């Protein structure tokens, strides 16, 4: 994540907080970031060949079509002025982190070798809520390469309980013992 994205996200977060619209702004930002991350739209937004008038027109179109708030509409105009529309996905991520921190919650990614049932997911969320002391929002990703077990990513930290990692560790131990 670039320093530019962090600065814009911080500024938007401050404005949204002043306007008491942290969550609506986050929702709007997530929608417009989703559009900006689209493989067909993203390159256009990042193109240096786009004229300022055309960038403003794009920002207005996004605001109108997605029915964004006035705050976010002005924010898009600002990004268009500074040719930073391509930074929208990164800004949205950073804004979400700031919002989560402000709301006392964290997001975790749970990678599982097989789909988890509701009870299993709830158990994982509860365990990490207890561990971090924060509200936990989980996202489950099925990853068959893990073979079995789960792997949880929490704010850049990885808790690994997968069979794949245990097998890798076993192979490393065997290789190390064999080379003695």
């Amino acid at each position: 994540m670039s320093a530019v994205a962090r600065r814009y996200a911080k500024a938007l977060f401050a404005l949204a907080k002043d306007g008491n619209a942290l969550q609506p702004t986050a929702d709007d930002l997530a929608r417009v970031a989703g559009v900006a991350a689209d493989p067909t739209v993203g390159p256009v937004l990042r193109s240096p060949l786009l004229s300022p008038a055309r960038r403003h027109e794009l920002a207005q179109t996004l605001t109108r079509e997605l029915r964004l708030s006035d705050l976010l509409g002005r924010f898009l105009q600002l990004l268009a002025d500074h040719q930073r529309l391509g930074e929208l996905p990164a800004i949205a991520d950073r804004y979400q982190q700031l919002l989560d921190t402000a709301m006392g919650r964290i997001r975790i990614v749970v990678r599982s070798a097989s789909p988890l049932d509701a009870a299993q997911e709830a158990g994982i969320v509860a365990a990490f809520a207890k561990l971090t002391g924060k509200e936990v929002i989980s996202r489950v990703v099925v990853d068959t390469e893990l073979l079995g077990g789960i792997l949880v990513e929490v704010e850049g930290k990885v808790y690994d309980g997968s069979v794949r990692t245990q097998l890798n560790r076993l192979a490393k131990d065997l290789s190390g013992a064999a080379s003695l």
Partner: protein
Amino acid sequence: MKARLVTFAATLAVPIHLALASEEAHGHEAHGIPWGSLLFSAINLAIFLWVLGRFVMPAVRGWVAQRRDDVLNELKAAAAAKEEALRLKAEWEARLAALEGTMAEMRAEAQRDAERERERILAAARAAADTIRKDAERAAAYEIRRTQQQLRAELVHQAVRLAEDATRAQWTAADQQRFIADFLKQVGQ
């Protein structure tokens, strides 16, 4: 001088000779001893001997003396040359004798040098052979270790692959539940 004396003697002898010849002519008729002719011959001989002793003999004696001196000088020179030759011969014989010794010493030194060089070359060859042998041993040991490691790595890889296949084939929901429970237990600790 000599020429004038010879001329004087000849001038003196001619009238005497003529006078005696006239007497002889008369004497043939007397049939006695020819005293005049005899006297003339004696005087003539005396003059001859006197001229010989006065003018010829000194020159002959001088020449003989000179010749003797020359011969003596030549003999002395020859003796000196012989002595010098003998001295040189002795000197060269001494040198030759010394040369033989020097040559023998040089041959001995050369032989010792050759022996030392041979020993040095042999030592170097032995050291090179030893280094080659040790290198070969090290290379062989390294190759053996490398092959062993490869084999072990391959064994480990195959074991892991078999374990993966077994896990994929036999992994059940109960196994997953047990893994999650163990994982959460560890996280909680």
